[in-house]
């Protein structure tokens, strides 16, 4: 077996650390947003109520006269997964890693993502088709609620105020506007940065161990 010299080992060590840092840096770049700088004439509010009751609000801007529900979700920067249901379109299976794992998108028992629409500031209406089959115009709102399927089926919090100042992300619970602009708030993930850092450190340490091991012989 070809021996790895101290310099090459050190290079491996540095490469490991750099890979970890690069992974962190790439993730820290802001996610692409249709809402940034409030340059878009039309806006749709997105309200997502997670299983623990926490609500997330995003304002999505667009140029065309309408935008599909899936495009709104995509532009929000939130993690999501869908599954096709024939002519009904795509059903939402997962949003923001909730549920963490699933085998059936719309289970017969358990929780699922319920879809709501609000037209021109009106009340929430339950969606009757998939998210890809819904179109939204300026001033509409899209709502998603992780519903336990048993008991009452309340609508998500009101979308009022989410797009009050286009270009800023406002918590749907009515709190103070976030400092992060638009839907780019979903950019950096501390967990991913931590994972990249741990991988980088462990790979760097392995490179160092290799160098020390070679030196001992």
């Amino acid at each position, binding site marked *: *077996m070809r021996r790895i010299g101290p310099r090459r080992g050190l290079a491996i060590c540095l490469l490991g650390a750099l890979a970890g840092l690069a992974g962190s840096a790439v993730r820290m770049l802001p996610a692409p947003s249709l809402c940034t700088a409030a340059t878009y004439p039309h806006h749709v509010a997105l309200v997502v109520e997670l299983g623990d009751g926490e609500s997330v609000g995003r304002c999505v801007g667009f140029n065309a006269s309408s935008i599909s529900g899936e495009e709104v979700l995509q532009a929000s920067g939130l*993690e999501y*997964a*869908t*599954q*096709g249901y024939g002519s009904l379109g795509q059903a939402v*299976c*997962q949003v923001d*890693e909730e549920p*963490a*794992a*699933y*085998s059936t*998108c719309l289970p017969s028992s358990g929780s699922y993502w319920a879809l709501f629409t609000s037209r021109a500031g009106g009340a929430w209406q339950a969606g009757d088709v998939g998210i890809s089959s819904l179109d939204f115009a300026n001033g509409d709102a899209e709502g998603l609620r992780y519903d336990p399927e048993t008991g009452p089926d309340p609508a998500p919090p009101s979308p009022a105020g989410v797009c009050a100042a286009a270009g800023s992300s406002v918590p749907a619970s009515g709190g103070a506007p976030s400092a992060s602009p638009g839907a780019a708030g979903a950019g950096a*993930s*501390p*967990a*991913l940065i*931590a*994972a990249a850092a*741990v*991988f980088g450190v*462990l*790979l760097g*340490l*392995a490179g160092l*161990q*290799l160098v*020390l*091991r070679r030196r001992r*012989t």
Partner: protein
Amino acid sequence: MSTRSLAVWSASGLVIALSTSNPVYRVVVLLCALNLLLARGRRGSGARILLTGIGIAGLIATLLTLLLSHTGRHVLVRLPAGIPAIGGPLTLEALAFGLATGLGIAAALLAVAPLTLVSQPHELVDALPSPLARTGAALGAALNLIPGTLRSAGEIREAQRMRGWRARRVVDWPAVAVPVVLTAIEGSMTLAEAMESRAYGTSARTHFGIQRWAPYDTLVSVTALLAVAGFLALVATGGAPGWFPFPVLSAPAISVPALLCCALLVVPSLRVWP
């Protein structure tokens, strides 16, 4: 480093690797085990063979999952449906799940590898509690029989070749097999006599106290137990979600506390201690 603290560490790493389907945590366990082998592994202990075996096992797991699981939205290639078992779509989701499975196997194997690649066999027997010492010695001797027989088979084969023997048909092999069996029986008798002459089975086994439990071993054991306890608690409470790529591939969720629990396993690799 005490073999008992190493055993605690290995058990912790194994439990973590097997209790989650999340590849992120498995990679951390794998890297911690790799660091430990690089830092404390014995030279000439067969690490290369083990790593090759782990690589092959991971590859087989990946291929089997890719070929047999036809679930997932992103189709990479379609095999003719007429091919039994493997016919149908081969998906990106199945490939990812296969890789995660292979990673789990590799992490689990590497977690227990230090028991043989860092410790000596007699240290493992010494590390057993006294009620298990006799069983451990018998098991150790039995396990040693396999490499011993293989070694003996190689030597006898070489000796027969020097005498002009060539294996052309199956009926030629008894020329090697018979001496191997006889040598194994003779070796067993010799081992039994050697064990009896050392008073095996009369009382508790005595040995030189070469390995002493140091404060460092306490640190290794405590951190390993903290890691596995914390991780299992997070798994039980949903704080360390697993990962399932079907039907649509998604990035695994990462929990920082669970990540830190796994990273605690790096402690024995830090060479600030002897």
